[in-house]
């Protein structure tokens, strides 16, 4: 187990370069900024709406995307992944470390934003909003992060594919095709929030289905990442 610590450390240090950290902080701070703006200008408090549209649908997947695709993707791209692969470490440990860091960093960025926004703009049901969205974003954000870590092991254009998934599939298509609603991490996250009492617009996914989808994504991503790492090929120069 102690071999996970250096893996986690080096992944974290690699992820928190100056530019990336600034970008993530800006993204995570945005909902809080808007909430402050609304609060200060005496507007109508409605934390749910911000948390739904800005956090769950936008900031959370974007943060998970940036962090998830870079956790091992940036090392593959610049050629330093080899130093992790040629070590006598079980492949599942490497996968677990990467996913833990990606999910953890996503949570660390997103949860405070959720909490602050709820506190600033919550109405009478503020506790429900806070708890509901915190849990939902924790699980949903981790699912996104895990999925993007696994994706980055299969393609170098994981960022773009992930964007297409979030914007085209989750944003447009699965809204059009009712039957495919469960194939969306976003809908599962909102469904989980709804199950915890949050008032989610539209018809959220049932609680059981939401949990099943998120669990499947988390476990499946971990399994896929392990499988792929065991067979990961690194070509030589000439």
């Amino acid at each position, binding site marked *: 187990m102690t071999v996970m610590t250096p893996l986690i450390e080096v992944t974290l240090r690699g992820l928190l370069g100056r530019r*990336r950290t600034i*970008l993530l902080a800006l993204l995570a701070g945005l909902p809080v900024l*808007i909430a402050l*703006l*609304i609060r200060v200008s005496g507007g109508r408090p409605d934390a749910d709406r911000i948390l739904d549209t800005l956090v769950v649908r936008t900031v959370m997947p974007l943060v998970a995307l940036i962090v998830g695709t870079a956790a091992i*993707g940036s090392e593959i791209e610049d050629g330093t992944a080899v130093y992790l692969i040629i070590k006598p470490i079980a492949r599942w440990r490497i996968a677990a470390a990467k996913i833990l860091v990606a999910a953890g960093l996503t949570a660390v960025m997103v949860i405070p934003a959720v909490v602050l926004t709820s506190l600033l703009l919550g109405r009478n049901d503020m506790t429900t909003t806070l708890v509901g969205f915190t849990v939902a974003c924790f699980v949903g954000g981790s699912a996104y992060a895990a999925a993007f870590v696994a994706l980055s092991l299969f393609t170098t254009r994981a*960022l773009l594919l992930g964007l297409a998934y979030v914007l*085209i599939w989750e944003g*447009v298509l699965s809204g059009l095709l009712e039957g495919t609603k469960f194939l969306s991490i976003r809908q599962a996250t909102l469904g989980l929030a709804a199950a915890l009492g949050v008032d989610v617009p539209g018809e959220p996914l049932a609680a059981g289905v939401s949990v099943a989808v998120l669990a499947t994504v988390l476990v499946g991503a971990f399994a896929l990442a392990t499988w792929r790492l065991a067979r990961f090929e690194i070509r030589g120069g000439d």
Partner: protein
Amino acid sequence: MTASGPGGSIFDLGYQSYTGPRLGRRSAVRALFSQTIRACFGIGRGGRAKIAPFGLSALAVLPAGLAVGFAALAAQAGPAGGAIENASPIRYETYHGLVAILIMLFCAAQAPELFGRDQRYGVLPLYFSRVLTRPDYALAKVFGLMLALFAVDIAPYLILFVGRVFVAPDPATGLAEEIAALPRFLLQGVLVAGLLGGIAGLIAAWTPRRAYATATIIAVFIIPPIIVAIVAAQTSQDLARALVLFSPGDILDGTNAAIFGSIPDSPVVASVNLPGWAYLAAAAVGIVGSIGLTVRRYVRIAT
């Protein structure tokens, strides 16, 4: 010219220096411009480079193709078919909403390649030591990107246009009916290509690393409309009215509504009730500003 002496020999291999005409600056700019357009679609590189641009373009024209197909079938069905066709959600004024996100993804995918690669591989000195000036380089790249985006944007409209002309009872009346839409969607196409391409190019020029550029471009396109919607719903309309003009997605929604005289897709834009020329002016400022800043970036970049 072979020369030999006791110590060594020089052999004439037939090398000649080029003494022919040299094409000037205009040629260089045109070459870079056409290369940029080809790079936008991944032409000249392997199959993988073509997946994103062609995939997104195909998705963009798909609804138009379907609409034309349905229209053709509806025309067979007579007057009932006409009613169905008029109820179709795929029309000129609604198409922008369908295609905007795809154009944004196209920008996010291709702009980093166009502007970032040359910086990352350090080949800018090769360009700038030619007859091509720095503004030439920047403008050729930016306009190349914009032209490619313009083509992708108006392709579905053209398909709709041509389809509907020929589906009409006879082409002459069809043309007369549809002709009004032509300058409209061309103008909207120019604004879309100009604004989205200009902003994407600017971001990509400032962010050589591909992943950051892609993420930032997408963030700049999709986050502001959400913020504006929240602000509009929860605070004063005046604040929303000011913010709307800083959101490229909403600006283009507004120009679309103004040009076609229709209801805007976004409820925010509809509620904010700004006059059409405000959006057009904002778009113009955005286009010119982003081009200017991109040129400035390349004029001042250190190589």
